[in-house]
Each structure stands twice: as structure tokens, then as C-alpha cells.
């Protein structure tokens, strides 16, 4: 507490990059500069909301009414804020401004998913060049069938060598793995590979770390991603916290905004799991599909409009899923595959929740859910 005493009569300011978000029962403090968040009580949230800047001793005086217990609690709060480097002391508090939450990006499409199984007939060269012309910089290719490294080089990477797409993520079955060497070579040769994720592996393991350029990760996961129905799971390990995702989340859907996808049948959709198709890649260009009415209908649904999520402290760092929702009749209902309850602050298994069984049936997810239970 030494530091607190030394500073208690100086003017503090809450870091503009430390942003408190209030939930039903607790809050979080998002540090978007360091990409981490911390749980805080709602009382501290209120204190910070009302006192973005101030003098600690005065704040304590005003709130505690000389009550020792309250004084001690507020002192602890400030101690936490100082230790965590969430506030700083200055003689020029007016200089510092809260962060603006504007978001925009110079592209019609920023990210895409291409799903591939044994029956998929795709021309990657053509698709990637179409995506490039829409400004897309990140692509995820999900393979529900096996593919060897050499085949992938020939089919996907060689023809698109000159493409300006910056990052390609590959998700494929562990059965394709064989040995690390051939995949390592692939990431060395094609530096646009962000990661290779092998699913349905015996264990979770990172086999090759990101390189100096933030690319080329190779890792194994245990989950089985056998088709697009496996997507949409909400979990704290998928939370993202950086300035661009955080500001985008203020205005847009964290999964579907500026996304375009091609499902295994070649249907052009916002996401492969959605019912609505806007044409087939055989006879429709991505640009045409994007221009059709309805394509962008989920793009501006942010978490503030979604039931339950709007009261959840994680709403701006969480992914949102609109393909699988608790009430398929209600476009604003909570993601089906989230087990978090912002009232109790508990994570529960979503698939066994009795209230969700109807929706699970609606989407035909019973088989997957059963398999997962066995695996657990």
C-alpha cells in the first residue's frame, strides 16, 4: 500500500485503454492495449464510471462517509488499479481523452470461410482472386476430408502464389497429418499460412510456434470438426481482445460482419452453417451474391441487441453466432452453444441444458452432441 499512500493526494486518470464493461453480476476491465481483461466487482465499475479522473483521498472521503470498512474496500480498489497499471498520476488530467470507438476497414469483405469435403468442386485460384478483388485479407479453409501437404501445395497455394490475401488458416483432419516435416516445409514455402490446425487428434499440442512474422503455427486439437455444424461454440478461450475487434464489436456482429463463405456444395452464404444461400459459385460471383438483398442482414447485429448477451460482461470480447441460436424464431436470441449465465457467472455445458433441447433438434445437432458426450 506504500504506493497508494504516496499518491493519494495526486490526480489520477484511468488509462484510456482500460475500459470497464458492466455485466449483470460483475464487470470486467478490458485492457485493449495489453490484450487482457480482469474481473472486477460492479461497485468498482460504478466508481470508475463516475470518477474516470480524480484524487484518491477525495474519492474515498466522498464515498465512505468515514466508514472504515468502505474506506478499506476503496483503498483496495485503488491499490489494485495502481498495481495493475490501470491508472496513472498526472498534473494534466484534461490532456487525456477517452478512446473513440469508431471502426471501419477499407474492404467490402475482410474475411471468408471456404468449406471443402470429398465432393466439393472448387477452383481456389478463381475464388481467391474474387476475394482479393473484394479486399478480403483473411481466409479460413476448413477441410472435412483428407489432403496431403503436396496436394495442398498444388491445389491451393501454388495457383495463388501472387494473391494479395495476407493470411490463410487451414483446418483439416488429423488423419492427414503423417509427419510434421512435410507440413513445416509447406509453411516455410508459403508464408501466408497463418496456421494449420489438425482436429480429431489424440491430444492438444503445438508442434510449431508462430514465426517472427506471426505466421506458420502448426497445432493439434482434440475436438472433431467433421462438418460445419461443429462451428459456433462460445467459450472463454475464444475471446479476443484487441483494439480492432473491440471497436468492431461496438457496432457490428463479431463473427459475421464483412464475412463471406462458400459451403461444401458451392453455395455462397454469409456463413456456411446458415440456411440462406445467395447463389452457387458455379454461376454466381461473390460480388453478385454480396449485392443481393439480405446478405448483410446480420452484419449490424451487435451484442447489445442480443438477449442475455446484452447483460453479459464479456459481450465485446466474445464471438457471436447467429447460425445456431436458442430460439430459431428470434433473430436476437442468445447463441445456442454458449453455456455462460451472466446472472450466476457460471459456465455450464450447453448441450445438456434442457431448455436448449428444442433448438438442438431444430438444427439437427443431436448426433454431434451425443458423440461429444461420449468423447468427454
Amino acid at each position, binding site marked *: 500500500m506504500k504506493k497508494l499512500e504516496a499518491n493519494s493526494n495526486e490526480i489520477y486518470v484511468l488509462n484510456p485503454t482500460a475500459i470497464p464493461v458492466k455485466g449483470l453480476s460483475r464487470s470486467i476491465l478490458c485492457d485493449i492495449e495489453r490484450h487482457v481483461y480482469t474481473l472486477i466487482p460492479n461497485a468498482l465499475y460504478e466508481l470508475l464510471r463516475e470518477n474516470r479522473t480524480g484524487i484518491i483521498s477525495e474519492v474515498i472521503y466522498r464515498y465512505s462517509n468515514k466508514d472504515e470498512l468502505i474506506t478499506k474496500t476503496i483503498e483496495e480498489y485503488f491499490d489494485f488499479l495502481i498495481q495493475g497499471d490501470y491508472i*496513472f498520476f498526472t498534473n494534466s488530467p484534461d*490532456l487525456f481523452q477517452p478512446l*473513440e470507438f469508431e471502426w471501419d476497414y477499407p474492404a467490402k469483405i475482410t474475411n471468408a470461410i471456404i468449406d471443402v469435403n470429398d465432393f466439393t468442386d472448387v477452383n481456389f485460384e478463381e475464388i481467391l482472386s474474387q476475394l482479393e478483388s473484394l479486399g478480403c485479407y483473411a481466409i479460413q479453409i476448413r477441410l472435412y476430408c483428407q489432403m496431403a501437404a503436396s496436394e495442398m501445395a498444388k491445389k491451393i497455394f501454388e495457383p495463388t502464389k501472387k494473391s494479395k490475401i495476407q493470411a490463410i488458416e487451414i483446418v483439416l483432419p488429423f488423419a492427414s497429418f503423417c509427419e510434421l516435416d512435410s507440413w513445416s516445409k509447406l509453411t516455410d514455402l508459403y508464408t501466408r499460412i497463418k496456421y494449420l490446425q489438425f482436429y480429431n487428434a489424440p491430444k492438444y499440442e503445438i508442434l510449431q510456434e508462430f514465426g517472427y512474422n506471426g505466421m506458420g503455427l502448426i497445432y493439434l486439437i482434440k475436438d472433431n470438426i467433421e462438418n460445419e455444424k461443429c462451428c459456433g461454440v462460445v467459450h472463454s478461450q475464444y475471446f479476443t481482445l484487441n483494439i480492432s475487434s473491440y471497436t468492431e464489436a461496438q457496432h457490428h456482429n463479431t463473427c459475421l460482419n464483412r464475412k463471406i463463405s462458400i459451403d461444401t456444395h458451392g453455395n455462397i452464404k454469409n456463413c456456411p452453417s446458415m440456411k440462406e444461400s445467395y447463389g452457387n459459385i458455379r454461376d454466381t460471383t461473390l460480388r453478385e451474391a454480396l449485392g443481393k438483398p439480405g446478405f448483410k442482414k446480420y452484419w449490424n447485429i451487435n451484442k447489445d441487441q442480443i438477449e442475455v448477451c446484452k447483460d453479459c460482461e464479456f459481450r465485446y470480447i466474445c464471438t457471436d453466432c447467429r447460425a445456431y441460436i436458442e430460439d430459431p424464431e428470434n433473430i436476437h436470441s442468445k447463441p445456442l452453444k454458449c453455456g455462460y449465465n451472466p446472472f450466476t457467472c457460471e459456465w455450464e455445458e450447453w448441450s445438456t441444458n434442457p431448455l436448449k433441447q428444442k433448438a438442438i433438434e431444430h438444427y439437427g445437432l443431436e448426433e454431434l452432441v451425443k458423440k461429444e458426450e461420449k468423447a468427454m
Partner: protein
Amino acid sequence: MLLILSQENDVSTVHILQWLIHWGVPFFRINEEDNISVDTLSIGPNNCREIILMKNGKHRLVLNELKACWYRRGAVHLRIKNQFPIEIEKPLSERVFTHMKAEARACEDYINFIIESLPRINTYNRRDVNKLIILDIASRIGLKIPKTLVTTKKEIYLSTFGNNQKTITKSIHTGFDYMRVNDEGKEERYSTYTEVLDFLNLPNSFFPSKFQEKIEKEADIRVFYLFGDFYTMAIMSQDNPQTSTDFRKYDNIKPNRRFPAKLPFEVEQKLDSLMRAIELESGSIDLILTKDGEFIFLEVNPVGQFNMVSVPCNYNLEKIFAHKLKTFLS
């Protein structure tokens, strides 16, 4: 059509162009590395002119149809070859080549003159700003500046600063940066940073060097300036001895925190006067915030890096800047 003058590897240019492409704004980019030749350069009666340039032998630019220009970096270079249709012997051939270069130079000057008359952001003639002149103008405008001395003698240093005042030494003009690969194949880098001076080590006389009083600071302030608008970032560096002199020596362990900020109105007004006086439409400005809340002006850089301020403060300067260019066309 918008003209953009830059260099091949300039990332900020790419970020701006992304927006222009996204909005379908027509532009023509010339990099310093490009081979530019004059196709037509005609000045006729009745205020009529036609100037057509070729880029790398294939792209045609009608200069007189341009609506605006953004000068980022580099220069329009007319390439001439040291070749002659007949054999000419040495000193004469050298004289002829020098003459040819001067002739080409006259065309370049004319091209720059035409470009300069367009609505624009910055220009070739203002690409290099003299730090001493700017400091002088800043002081005249009423901005606070650090006490600055250029001298060759320790004696004068001591009579100016005494032996208690902490000082720093800085390059008079631009920093020095040199990279080489040593015998073991490792990269070695030599560069000048702003350093705290130990005057005891000063010889009695030396090459002209610049000294400035060292100011105890609360934060470094970096401003991106565009036509009277200010986008300001504070870089908190006081708690961190490793970076308290020059924040460019990035500290990887505990990064300096960077926050959006807003300068007091009078400071902005003075900086605006300064930028107008030196005729820069855009640039980045460095200041120091002292512990007493004073702003000390340090320098202006006409080619500020956009994303350094844009990303941490979420200003999206690239979009704002590109939008400014777009409005030139409407």
C-alpha cells in the same frame, strides 16, 4: 485524377491507397524508383498547356488533367542514359552528360512547378525541413522550446549550460543510421539516438554539435497534423529509465503506454501557425509534456508514420487522410 508521389516500400502509402481503391477514387502513383520520361511538354498561347509523362514506358499520365497531389516521399526522376549516338571522348562526354542532366533537371523543375500549383498535401520543395529554422520560427510564434546550442567548444557549452544542467545531444539535421554485416555474418547497426550527455567526456573542441537542455517529462507527445486538425497521442515514458530519453529505443519488457490526448487550444493554435508558416499541410509534430503541465515543442517531421499514432489511439487516420484526398476531386 489524383497524383501520389512516394517510394516503393512506403507502407503508409499502401494504407491510404487501400481506402482510395475501396472508394473507387482514381489515382496515379509515381514512386521514386519509377522510370519517368517526358512524352509531351507543350506550353502554348492562351494559357494552354499539355504535359504528358510516361511511367516505366507503359503508363501514360496527363499531368495537366490532374486535380490534386499528395506528396509523400521521393521525387519525379527523369532517367537519362550516359549514352550518345556517336563516340565522344572523355572529358567532353562528361561535360555533355552533365549538361544533359541539367536539361532534364529543368524539365523536372517545371513538372514540380505544375504539381505544386495543384490543391495538395505537402510538396517536393518542402520535403526537408531544417530543424534549426523550425525551432527559430516556433520560438517566434511563442511556443516553448528547449534551450538549444550548436557549438564546437566545450568552453561555450559550459558557459551556456554550466556543469549542473543535464543536457542531451541530438543530430543537427537528421539522425544517422547505418547497417552492416560483420565478419561473422551478423548485422551490426549504428544509429544516433537522443542521448544524455556526459560533458566530462567532451574534448575541448569538436565537430559542430547540437545540445539541448534535458527536460524532465511526464510524457512524449506526438501529433498528427492535417489541415488544422490535430490527432494527438501521449506516450507515457516517465516511469521507465530505459526510454525516458528517447522513446524510440523501444522497451520490449514493459511497453510505454500510449493514449489519445487533446492539446490545449492555445498550443494547437500556435502549432497551426507554425505549420502554416512552414507551408506544411500535414506532418507529425513532437512535443514534451513537462511535469508542470507545460508543452515544449521539439520538431516537425513532414512524413509522419500514420499507424504509429493511428492504431493505438484508434484515430483511423488513414481513412481521414484518404477522405481529404477524395474531397480534392469533388
